[in-house]
């Protein structure tokens, strides 16, 4: 099902949503692109991938899980209530939307993480087609179409005079139906609205199938991993900004008479991540880098039949020493 809408009506429709939901859009906050509450004066346009991925709206860098009050004679625990309140995210890119789907089994399978599941349930995902290749990105190599997505509720393409919307979910359909904001469109119009991606490369950098086929064989090759990880400085920014990295730590904060246990991001790039009393299986940097790449392209795939990378390019452009994952993947494939 396809719909169309003018920018003015889209703002009115979103204004209507605001009565029941927070509306978040990509915006620059304190010099950093992220997703934040919008006043809806304007619609997001000509923006690239945010620096902080929308993952943080579902799996925040800091999440209180429980608290306690204690005295000499007693200790009472209280569970942190799961997040509530409806929200809509406008302007999600196809790569980031896919990343949310990739993370789903991690948090929902076997033991369901109520913080993640509630964040998914309470959020309407409104995707938007990319118009230009983001710096450092390799989404198409990862099989992601920058102009389409089925990982959201509604997906928008900009056209002269407004937007076309592809309806993906029942939730999206129900919300678009209210009022007379949207008009009918067609698959023909939708297909005609596909644009050439600005700055698109002529040839892919690497072949994902070859990476998947060879990453396991590469695992024992210590020289290879030493070589490709040589300049890594263990800063962990690639993991913090990665839309699919999900390793975390559990920590306690004790204050007089009360305390909080929270979950915070952690990183396999840090030497302390696997440190035990008498042994650290990943004391050396090359082992940690190997773990990160192998987990994403091999182990995660074995467990969940999806590669834990969407080619967003954040790790490439924010790496302080220009360690380019694309070059490493190309080397693995060769």
């Amino acid at each position: 099902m396809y719909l169309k809408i003018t920018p003015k009506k889209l703002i009115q429709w979103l204004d209507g949503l605001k009565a029941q939901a927070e509306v978040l859009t990509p915006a620059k906050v304190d010099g950093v692109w992220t997703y934040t509450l919008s006043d809806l004066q304007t619609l997001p346009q000509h923006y690239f991938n945010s620096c902080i991925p929308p993952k943080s709206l579902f799996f925040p860098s800091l999440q209180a899980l429980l608290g306690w009050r204690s005295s000499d004679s007693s200790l009472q625990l209280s569970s942190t209530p799961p997040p509530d309140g409806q929200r809509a995210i406008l302007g999600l890119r196809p790569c980031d939307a896919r990343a949310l789907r990739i993370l789903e089994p991690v948090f929902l399978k076997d033991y369901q993480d109520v913080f993640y599941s509630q964040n998914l349930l309470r959020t309407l995902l409104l995707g938007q087609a990319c118009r230009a290749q983001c710096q450092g990105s390799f989404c198409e190599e990862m099989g992601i179409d920058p102009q389409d997505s089925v990982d959201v509720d509604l997906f928008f393409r900009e056209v002269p005079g407004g937007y076309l919307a592809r309806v993906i979910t029942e939730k999206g359909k129900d919300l678009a139906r209210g009022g007379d904001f949207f008009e009918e469109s067609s698959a023909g119009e939708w297909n005609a609205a596909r644009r050439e991606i600005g700055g698109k490369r002529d040839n892919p950098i690497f072949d994902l199938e070859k990476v998947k086929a060879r990453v396991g064989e590469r695992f024992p090759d210590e020289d290879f991993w030493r070589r490709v990880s040589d300049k890594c400085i263990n800063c962990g920014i690639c993991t913090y900004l990665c839309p699919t990295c999900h390793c975390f730590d559990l920590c306690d904060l004790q204050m007089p008479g009360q305390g909080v246990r929270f979950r915070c991001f952690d990183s396999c790039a840090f030497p302390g991540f696997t440190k035990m009393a008498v042994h650290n299986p990943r004391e050396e940097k090359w082992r940690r880098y190997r773990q990160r790449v192998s987990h994403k392209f091999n182990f995660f795939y074995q467990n969940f039949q999806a590669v834990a990378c969407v080619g967003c390019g954040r790790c490439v452009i924010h790496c302080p020493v220009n360690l380019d994952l694309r070059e490493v993947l190309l080397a693995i494939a060769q």
Partner: protein
Amino acid sequence: MNEQVQEKNIYQPHLMEITKVIPETGDTKTFHIQFQDASLRESFSFLAGQFAEYSVFGEGEATFCISSSPTRMGRLEFSVKRVGRVTHALHQLNEGDPIGFRGPYGNHFPLDKLKGKNLLFIGGGIGLAPLRSLIHNVVDTRADYREITILYGARSPQDLCFRYDLESWGGNPTLTIVTTVDVGDNNWKGKVGLVPMVLEEIKPSSKETIAITCGPPIMIRYTLKSLEKLGFTPSQVWTTLEMKMKCGLGKCGRCNIGPLYVCKDGPVFSLEEIQRFVSDEF
């Protein structure tokens, strides 16, 4: 507090009370604990080999196996060597103090594969803790198993854990128990030597036998070699793997080796399984 919400929060521990603290060695203590909620004392169950996350509120959580046996419910026991932040905090606790408990997590020893076999337990130091859960379990259902041999080693006589168990097993005519220390003293009557050396000396038959081992990584490494020399095949050898853990739920990523999460897919593995996936990281 919203009860329904609490049940859904997988990170929320149960409150337990310490009912007894037993000093095992200079740096190791065993804690007996009981659920504060009386209904949980009845409904809680686990299997030998499973572990839990134990909290000292304000210091954090740490992972230990449940060292008591599922055949001896009423209380749970776990043993802690003092090495880091949470273990130091645990060692400060006394009878009556509250602690947090999440579990049981992970898989368990394969009782169905042990039935009708000879069992050879090989433990080192605090590594006796998970084996002890299984040993009590098989002792309590003794008729299901054939010969049971326990080889246990520590650095010195003062470093032997669970001396009260060693004594009771020693007095049980249906068990063979061999203890060894790296360095003895004037009163020491057991063997002197490293566990793998003593294993090769006592030469247990591999026929119809399952070996279950747990101890420091270096001991396990050489014990596996000795077992191979004695004719044990990889499917006859079981061990528990140690990896840093935080969540115990297969989410936080710490204990991941290859496609496995030690917390969820382990901690009990056969040597056959380990050889298939463990690379150069162990």
